[in-house]
């Protein structure tokens, strides 16, 4: 029959329509629950699929790469607070395909000889192609790819060349966004500490590497707590934005929190994580200016 093909096709669209409505009805009021979100995003799903950004966000995988950032020791590190991991070896600047990394090698003020520390470090993110080569070839695990994609700005001349201060992040940030990779790298380094630091410690007759604030843990498949919310509760988000505005060093709070969460009788997915409402968050990572607005704000 002429037209039967069209009808058949319309049947498919009609099926989609119905399934989405069924989904809508059966998830009425629970649309943002994590299990609903899971169903929506699963491979078996046939109906609703929408991720309601910004209320819910699709998590990014650990290997996700956006713009690069530099790693430093934690500010509260007893021995090397805030020390750069970058040794200014220049490999990333050489390997970068569009040549958007600029490094001024540090010099020792006394001897005038180069020292393994960058004086200035710039990345022009208007050129960066997020390829990840810098992170891949850095021999010191000093440059990594950030997961923060919320970078929109109203002004580019001042905001889009990231300087060293803007690029530097504490190592705990990297450990929190990519725990498995960080653990693998730690194992490859032979300990928590930077390779050069390890060498220096060995020379000085110390234990080459100290145990890190987060002990390297094997990748367990199911560390997440039973109830997790996907959406970030707005109430919880507000103070964090406040905190980011102060731009204070996030460190001191870290030690205070774990006991509090342990008291619940639940193990946090990572040491140092705290429970806010129903979900676990990393108090230190959150203080990072994730929601940084452009200059114009």
């Amino acid at each position, binding site marked *: 029959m*002429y037209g*039967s093909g069209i009808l058949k096709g319309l049947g498919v669209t009609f099926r989609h329509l119905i399934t989405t409505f069924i989904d809508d009805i059966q998830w009425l009021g629970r649309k943002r629950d*994590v299990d609903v979100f899971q169903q929506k995003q699963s491979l078996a799903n046939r109906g609703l699929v929408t991720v309601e950004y910004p209320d819910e966000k699709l998590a990014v995988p650990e290997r996700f790469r956006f713009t690069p950032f530099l790693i430093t020791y934690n500010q509260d590190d007893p021995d090397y607070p805030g020390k750069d991991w970058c040794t200014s070896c220049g490999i990333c*600047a050489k390997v970068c395909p569009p040549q958007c990394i600029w490094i001024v090698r540090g010099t020792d003020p006394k001897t005038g000889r180069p020292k393994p520390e960058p004086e200035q470090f710039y990345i022009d993110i208007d050129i960066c192609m997020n390829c990840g080569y810098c992170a891949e070839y850095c021999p010191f695990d000093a440059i990594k790819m950030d*997961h923060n994609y919320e970078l929109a700005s109203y002004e580019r001349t001042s905001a889009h060349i990231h300087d060293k201060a803007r690029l530097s992040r504490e190592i705990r940030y990297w450990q929190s966004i990519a725990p498995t990779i960080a653990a693998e790298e730690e194992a490859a380094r032979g300990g928590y500490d930077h390779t050069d630091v390890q060498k220096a410690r060995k020379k000085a007759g110390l234990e080459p590497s100290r145990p890190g604030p987060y002990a390297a843990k094997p990748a367990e498949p199911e560390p997440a707590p039973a109830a*997790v919310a996907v959406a970030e509760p707005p109430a919880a988000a507000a103070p964090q934005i406040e905190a980011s505005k102060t731009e204070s060093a996030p460190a001191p709070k870290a030690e205070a929190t774990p006991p509090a969460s342990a008291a619940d009788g639940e193990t946090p997915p990572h040491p140092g994580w705290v429970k806010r409402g129903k979900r676990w968050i990393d108090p230190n990572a959150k203080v990072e200016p994730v929601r940084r607005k452009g200059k114009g704000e």
Partner: protein
Amino acid sequence: MTDQVLPQVTDLPSTIAALKERFPNAVKDDTRNGYEGVIVDAASLPDFARVIRDEYGFNYLSSLTAVDYLGHGDHLEVVYHAFRVPSGGKPLVFKAQTDRQDAVIPSLVSIYPGADFQEREAYDLYGIHFAGHPNLKRILLWEGFEGHPMRKDYHEAYYEQETKPFDTRWPGGHVFRGEEYNPFGHNVRYPAGFTLDDYKPQSEADFQQSMALGVDIMGDPAFRTDRLVVNLGPHHPSTHGVFRMMVALTGETIESLEPVMGYLHRNHEKIGERNTWYGNMPFTDRLDYICSMCNNLAYAITVEQMMGGQVSVPYRAEVIRVLMAELTRITNHLWSIGFLLNDLGAFFTPALYAIQTREYILDFFEATAGSRMMCNYMRIGGVFKDLPQRIRSEAALINDRVRDMDTLEYLEQLINDRLPRSIDELDELLSESEIIKSRCIGVGLLPAEMAIAYSASGPLLRASGVPYDIRRANPYSIYPELEFDICTRPNGDIYDRYYLRLDEMRQSVRILKQILPRLKDTQGQPIFGGKTSYSIKVPAGEAYGFAENPKGELGFYLVSMGGGNPWRYHVRAPSFINLTPLGEMCKGHKVADVVAVLGSIDIVLGETDR
């Protein structure tokens, strides 16, 4: 293609020997180290081409490009790669050399119509005049552009150094933006003494005249006839990007059509010659940005070919490569079917379904390679990293367990359930629709002989009934041990191209099903057999590597001088060459069919214009 009986010479060396005998003075071996093929005297090039096409069966001129050997003999060289289609086998490489000052080479368009755009490109970028070309004009740049940018002595405004890495980046990397060092603050460079005062740019009327379409007579007060020049693009909802077509119409019927491109010409090859060998990998992502994995693969196999025994790709890496390539093929075909339907007027529903399925594959790419589209995943000698254990993130931002799933389990579900279901659904939605049939069947015909003559490749060629698939004709990776059929369709119209893509997706799923057990068996095996150093040197020589991309034959013609950067980096872009027959395919149809025909060719502008 010819009624003559083909000579029994099938292997390449004896063919070359026979050809040398036939043209004793004009053909000689290319004896440079690392080079292959023959150098043909420019004057006897057309004769040579006719003989190899008619008598030796090299009926398919795949790639034509130029190389500037400034400082290495100071000549320009045009390099041709001709294949036998559909029987396959290695290409016959022949070259013609010419002077840099007065570069003239006879055109081969009359013998291989597929040389048309490629010769225009070589003219545009290298300034080689192809004597006898019917329409030798700039193709990627505009008329009036100063210079031929691919020549080695052409320096653009932001030129810093011949090769990367640049010295200004380290150790004294005082940051600057290129525009700070340009008097205009823009990426511009004008010849000496240039002012705007008496400059007359090419007008639109001249432009149309030069397209041999005649002047738009709409402006003529004595307008009586109904011949009309219509401009489609470069901003047009249905041109798949910034593509422009000039169409001459009689009433609603197309008399002739000229593609105008270059609106996304972003100097891929020029930058590629400055990049390091590794540096080009992420740039290939941006060629056909829907199929970055396949582009990576084609580039990697080309460089591996040049490195010879220095690298060996481990088996598991090959398995992963094929996995990625076939998943990419499915994404591409989903995308192209969705957007073909868009072009036919079924605005967005089929595309939405297609994109939704594509997202699942992208999730996997994102978890494995780190980016949804710009995967940068293959390395010379393997792949970047093994598959992740689990598809998930422990990112602090959100505790999302959605993708907390074993990777293999995810793949299994995807391949065994989700993809076949989506393909069947598209099939059910579209294949029998009377509207689609009446719009597509018999429209945009491309007969087999024409497809071969015009160097069409990929689905476009196979939909015309030519069973030519590089995965079989010139196998690479582990395709020889995998079972799949080369899909063909008999008629070569839009519907066949659509349906062929559906079939190919099913074949891809079939391949993927064979990949799954191999993935399990090889777990834990190495994935990289190349050099771990951040910069590699490639032995001097040339190589043409090619792979069956979802859109057709993606080839890389690379020349190395033995250093850390390619001397020549040419991309044989299927989207570009598949456009050559567009004008012929559209002739006689209605103007509304143009977009459908274009949609069925399936181009991506990043690759067309590079």
